[in-house]
C-alpha cells in the first residue's frame, strides 16, 4: 500500500531513507560538533581547526550509522518505539567505539584509558539528542495534524467551475442530450475525485484521465478557445502520486491563461522520467505584464505544501514566468505500486 500512512509518523523513529531525515541528521550532528569545538577551543581562531579535527572523528561513524539505519529502517519500525530508540542509540555508541579502536589501532590517535567507552558515550548522547528531536517532530506532524492539513488543502475545485459547468450542461440538455449526459458523468467523476479520501496515493494514469475529463468539460464551455497538448509518451503511468495534483494546476491554467484571452490559447502538459524522478510541466499563455503569475499563487502554494507533506524535501515545485508563457514544473520521486526492491 503506497499511501501517506505508509510513513508511520506514529513511530518515534523517522524514515531513515528519506533525504530530509538524512539532511537533518547531518546538519544536527555537525552543529553539535561545531558547538563542542567552540567549547574546547581556547580561542576563536582555534575554533575552525578544532572543528575540522573533530569532523574527522564525527563523520565516519555518522555515515556508517546512517547506512546501517537506512538498511534496517523497516526492521526498526517493527520494534516498539522506545526499544527502537535504544537500539539506535546503542548502535551509535557501538559504531563510535569501534571507530575509536580502529583509529588507535591504525595509529591515527593515541589510546587513552577507557577511550572507546568515552567515544561510545558521546556517540550515543549525540544520537539521543537527534532522536529526541525526531520524536518531537513526529508529534508535531502527527497523523491527525497532517491529515487535517491535507483535508484542508484538498478539494479545492473552484465553485466558479462547478456553476459554469452546470450552466453548460443545462444549455446542452435540449439540443444535444447525449453530450449533456457525458458532461454530467464527467462532472460526477471529478467531484468524486475531489471528495474522496486524500491520504491514498493514486496512479498517474488516473490523474491524467481526470485531467482529460476536466479539460473536456472546459472545452464544452470555451470551445475553440481552449486547445490542449498532452505529451504522455514514455511516462511511467503506474507511478503513484498525490491525488488531485494535476487538476488544480490545469484549472489555474484555464482560469488565468485561457479565459482572459479573446482568442484563447494552448495549455501544454508534459511528463518525463529521469532516473528515479518524475517531472511534470504545465504551461499556459500569460504575458509578464498580466496578473498571470499572481493569480496562480494560491493553488501553487497549496500544492507545494501538499508535496512537502507527502514527500518532505524529495519533491520540488517551481514556477517560471516566461516572455509569453507561465509554466509550473514539479519534480517528485517515482514510486510505483510496489516499493522498489533493494538491490
Amino acid at each position: 500500500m503506497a499511501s501517506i500512512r505508509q510513513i508511520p509518523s506514529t513511530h518515534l523513529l523517522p524514515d531513515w531513507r528519506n533525504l530530509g531525515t538524512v539532511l537533518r541528521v547531518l546538519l544536527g550532528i555537525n552543529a553539535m560538533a561545531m558547538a563542542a569545538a567552540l567549547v574546547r577551543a581556547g580561542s576563536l581562531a582555534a575554533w575552525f581547526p578544532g572543528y575540522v579535527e573533530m569532523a574527522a572523528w564525527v563523520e565516519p561513524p555518522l555515515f556508517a550509522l546512517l547506512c546501517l539505519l537506512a538498511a534496517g529502517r523497516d526492521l526498526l519500525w517493527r520494534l516498539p518505539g522506545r526499544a527502537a530508540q535504544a537500539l539506535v542509540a546503542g548502535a551509535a555508541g557501538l559504531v563510535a567505539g569501534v571507530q575509536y579502536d580502529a583509529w588507535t589501532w591504525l595509529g591515527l590517535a593515541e589510546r587513552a584509558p577507557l577511550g572507546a567507552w568515552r567515544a561510545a558515550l558521546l556517540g550515543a548522547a549525540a544520537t539521543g539528542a537527534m532522536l529526541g528531536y525526531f520524536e518531537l517532530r513526529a508529534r508535531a506532524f502527527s497523523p491527525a495534524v497532517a491529515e487535517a492539513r491535507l483535508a484542508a488543502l484538498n478539494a479545492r475545485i473552484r465553485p466558479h467551475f462547478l456553476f459554469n459547468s452546470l450552466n453548460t450542461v443545462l444549455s446542452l440538455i435540449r439540443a444535444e442530450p447525449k453530450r449533456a449526459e457525458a458532461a454530467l458523468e464527467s462532472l460526477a467523476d471529478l467531484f468524486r475525485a475531489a471528495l474522496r479520501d486524500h491520504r491514498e496515493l493514486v496512479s498517474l494514469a488516473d490523474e491524467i484521465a481526470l485531467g482529460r475529463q476536466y479539460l473536456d468539460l472546459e472545452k464544452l464551455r470555451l470551445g475553440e478557445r481552449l486547445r490542449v497538448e498532452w505529451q504522455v509518451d514514455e511516462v511511467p503511468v503506474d507511478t503513484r502520486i498525490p491525488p488531485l495534483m494535476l487538476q488544480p494546476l490545469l484549472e489555474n491554467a484555464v482560469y488565468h491563461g485561457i479565459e482572459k484571452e479573446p482568442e484563447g490559447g494552448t495549455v501544454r502538459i508534459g511528463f518525463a522520467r529521469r532516473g528515479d524522478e518524475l517531472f511534470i510541466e504545465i504551461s499556459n499563455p500569460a504575458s509578464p505584464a498580466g496578473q498571470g503569475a499572481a493569480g496562480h499563487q494560491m493553488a501553487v502554494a497549496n500544492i507545494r505544501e501538499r508535496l512537502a507533506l507527502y514527500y518532505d524535501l524529495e519533491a520540488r515545485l517551481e514556477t517560471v514566468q516566461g516572455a509569453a508563457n507561465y509554466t509550473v514544473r514539479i519534480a517528485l520521486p517515482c514510486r510505483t505500486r510496489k516499493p522498489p526492491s533493494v538491490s
Partner: protein
Amino acid sequence: MSNPETALRILIVDDEPPARARLRELLADIEPSLTTVVVGEADNGLAAMERLTEQPVDVVLCDIRMPRMDGVELAGHLGGLENPPALIFTTAYDNYAVQAFDLNAIDYLLKPVRAQRLLAALQKAKAARPILPAETLPAIGRELRGGGRTHLSCHERGRLLLVPVAEVLYFKADLKYVTARTKEREFLLDEALTHLEEEFAERFIRLHRSVLVAKDALAGFERAAGDDAEAYGWALLRGVPDKLPVSRRQWGLAKSFAKGA
C-alpha cells in the same frame, strides 16, 4: 410571436457560447409572460459597446468575467450612451462582485439562471431603469480584475468613442479638460487627472502638475534652457514629436524610469 412595438430588445453578452444559448432558451421559455427579442450577442464588453453604439437596446444581459473588456467596465461605459440600456449581470460565482452589487442594488442573476428569476429581473428593468452607481463601479472593477479599465470613454459630436488605455502616450490637463494623446490623435476626456494617476499607477507616472506619461513612451530628457517657470526640463517621447514639461520635483523619478526603458 414577438411584437416589435412592445418587445423588450435584449443584447446578450457572454464569452461562452453555451451560456448565451442557454439565455436564449430561457427567454423563449418566458415568452408567454414577457415578449422579448434578442437583437444581438457579443462575446466581450468591447464588442457589446460596438453593438450598442449602432443599435439601441433595452436590456443588456451581461457576464462579468470576460476577455478584452469585462462586464463591470462595460457597465461604466454605458452611461455615456445616448439611450443607456438597463443592465443585468449574469455570473456563475464571484463572491466579491456579487456582494458589491448587493450593496449597490445592481441587479444580477446567478448562473445557472432560473427562468422565473430572469422574468422578474426583466420585468423590473422594464418598469424602471435602474441607475448604475457610477462612483462605485470603478472600485468594484479594480478589485475584480486587479487593475484599471482597458478603455476610456470620449464623447465626440454626439458619438461615444472608446480609447484603449494601452495606446495612450500621455494625459494632459488643461483649464477644463483632460486630453489623452495616442500616436494618431488627441481625445477629450471627462476624467480627473488625479483619478487617472491612481487608477493607472502601474502604467503612467506624473511628470508635472498637469501631465501623466506612459512609462514605456518615454524616450529621453532635455534640461530647460534658462529659468523656465513652467518646466525644469522636457521629456521626449517615442513616436510623437511632442515635448512634455517635467517639474523639478518629478525630474529624478522620471529619469530613473527612462533609464529602465
